[in-house]
């Protein structure tokens, strides 16, 4: 037998013994293998179980208690929230904030990704690095910079507007401008994430498809509609849904810039929950507010998962 001409033990001393006791050893290895695997997963499962799943269930429990956390009130916190005008305003503002911001992030990301992709290959890295800066600065810190640009007296943005002949804008004093300002900050921070995702997806579109489209006489716009978009459809869907979750749950911008004001009109679920739960000390009510994010996030998560599986099959 050719296998015996060079026995493994000649090359690798110590293997021979294992090879001779092959049958029982394989069974033992198989047994051991799954045990080892479970042990290797154990720290991860502990963290997820103890610090994600347990708190999530605990939040549901907390939401059914009264303010002093001494009495079970059932759905009392929820029915109380439903009667509050502020709560509905927060829900509306969270939706406006997330949808508008994600739309513009995706749009700017798509445009800038195409622009960068148009450049000669050796310049792309530099531009990508430059455009990615907002996304690397911790959000709470860059929001301080925006806050300072929106300062009522010394606003550097108003200085530019005045120079261009426009009148000053009450960025954070007027509730509607304040809503615009928090969205602007979020678009600024999040668009680079879309840029890198779309740029990576653009690079994965095979060049032959564009060549074939050129031969068929397609112009740039037709190539975009009929080649680029279909090829990027699932990655666009994944990125948008993912960003929808993150934006919907955003806390940093509103908390640093407006703390929910003026007149609670910039509050989103996260900041409103923080205000009620931590600042006012009504833990059950805060937990109830943050639980409202759950169904919306769960729906988005299901669609993301489907998109990821589809994308994995396409690749």
């Amino acid at each position, binding site marked *: 037998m050719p296998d015996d001409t060079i026995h493994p033990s000649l090359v*690798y001393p110590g293997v021979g013994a*294992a090879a001779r006791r092959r049958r029982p050893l394989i069974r033992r290895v198989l047994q051991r*293998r799954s045990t080892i*695997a479970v042990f290797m997963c154990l*720290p*991860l499962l502990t*963290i997820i179980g103890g*610090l*994600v799943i347990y*708190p*999530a269930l*605990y*939040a549901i429990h907390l939401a059914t208690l009264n303010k002093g956390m001494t009495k079970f009130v059932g759905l009392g916190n929820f029915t109380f929230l439903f009667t509050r005008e502020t709560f509905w305003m927060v829900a509306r503002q969270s939706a406006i904030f997330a949808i508008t911001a994600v739309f513009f992030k995706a749009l700017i990301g798509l*445009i800038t990704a195409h*622009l960068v992709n*148009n*450049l000669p290959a050796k310049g792309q*890295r530099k531009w*990508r690095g*430059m*455009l*990615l800066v*907002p996304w690397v*600065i*911790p*959000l*709470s*810190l*860059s929001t*301080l910079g*925006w806050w*300072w*640009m929106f300062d009522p007296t*010394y606003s*550097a943005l108003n*200085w530019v507007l005045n120079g261009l002949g426009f009148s000053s804008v009450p960025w954070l004093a007027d509730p509607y401008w304040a809503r615009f300002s928090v969205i602007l900050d979020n678009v*600024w921070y999040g*668009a*680079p994430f879309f840029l890198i*995702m779309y740029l990576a997806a653009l690079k994965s579109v095979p060049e032959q498809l564009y060549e074939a489209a050129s031969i068929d006489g397609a112009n740039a716009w037709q190539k975009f509609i009929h080649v680029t978009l279909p090829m990027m459809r699932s*990655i666009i869907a994944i990125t948008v849904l*993912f960003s929808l*979750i993150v934006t919907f*749950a955003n*806390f940093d911008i509103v908390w*640093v810039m407006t703390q929910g004001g003026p007149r609670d009109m910039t509050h989103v679920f*996260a900041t409103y*929950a*923080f205000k009620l739960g*931590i600042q006012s000390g009504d*833990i059950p009510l*805060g*937990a109830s507010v*943050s639980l409202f994010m*759950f169904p919306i*996030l769960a729906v988005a*998560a299901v669609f*993301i998962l489907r998109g990821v599986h589809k*994308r*994995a099959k396409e690749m």
Partner: protein
Amino acid sequence: MATAELVAGHARRRALAGSLQRNRRWALILSYVFLILFAIFFLAPPYYMLVTSFKTNREMVDIATNPWIITRDITFDHYKVLLHETDFLIFFKNTIIVTVCVVAITMVVSTLAAFSLARMKFWGSVGIATGIFLTYLVPDTLLFIPLFQIVKGLGLLNSYWGMVLVYPTLTVPFCTWIMIGYFASIPKELDEAALIDGAGYMQMLLRIFIPVALPGIIAAMIFAFTVSWAAFVYPMAFLYRSDQLVLTVGTVTSLVRADVFQWGSLMAGALLAAAPPLIIYAFLMDYYIAGLTSGATKG
């Protein structure tokens, strides 16, 4: 006749190629113009923070001057105030301790888990992998109130060790997820060879998987670093004594006073606090982006 046609065709083709080239040049010029506009939008806030941090208070409150440039003296006073008269260095030290611990915990936990999930298929391993991805989608703002109660119950409220406990929930799922992808792409022949050589699973992980998947491990480390450096909700909720604060919360809460003259130090603090992620990213951007985009595109 035939040659004349050939020449004419040649000229036509050259004209067409010329117009294509001209189109392409225009497209390039337009791309640069718009990219410059976007770059101004993206870089204006950090640039303005930098300018503010070196500007004298007198110039800052002078409304007549251009706020975007420094026309008079450059001053380092804001940085001196920040480093000598505030707790900024304590925040920095706390953040480094928390981040180093969180990155270490994350890497150990997620490397082990990713290895076992990518290579040692066992009952429920596919379900766990999906579950990890779903966990990554659970935002911190959904969990901070129950975690507040849990951290309080453990006596870790107002201690940065509480952050070491809760930050891994932000880092571990995604790091495990991208490392599963990297480990799964390593050819099976390599581990078969290792098994034949009599290597155990730990040896296999340490000698083969970690070195081969090093780019993925670096990407995961940068992610864990960035996330724990920038975390805001948890420290905002769980920390309030200034000797325990981390940089993000410390800069935002304790350096903000109702006094307009604090702006310089505030911007200096924000920039210094943002410097470590910026520096790391400047050197390791390619690893980071490769890790992020592969995590999202390959699954």
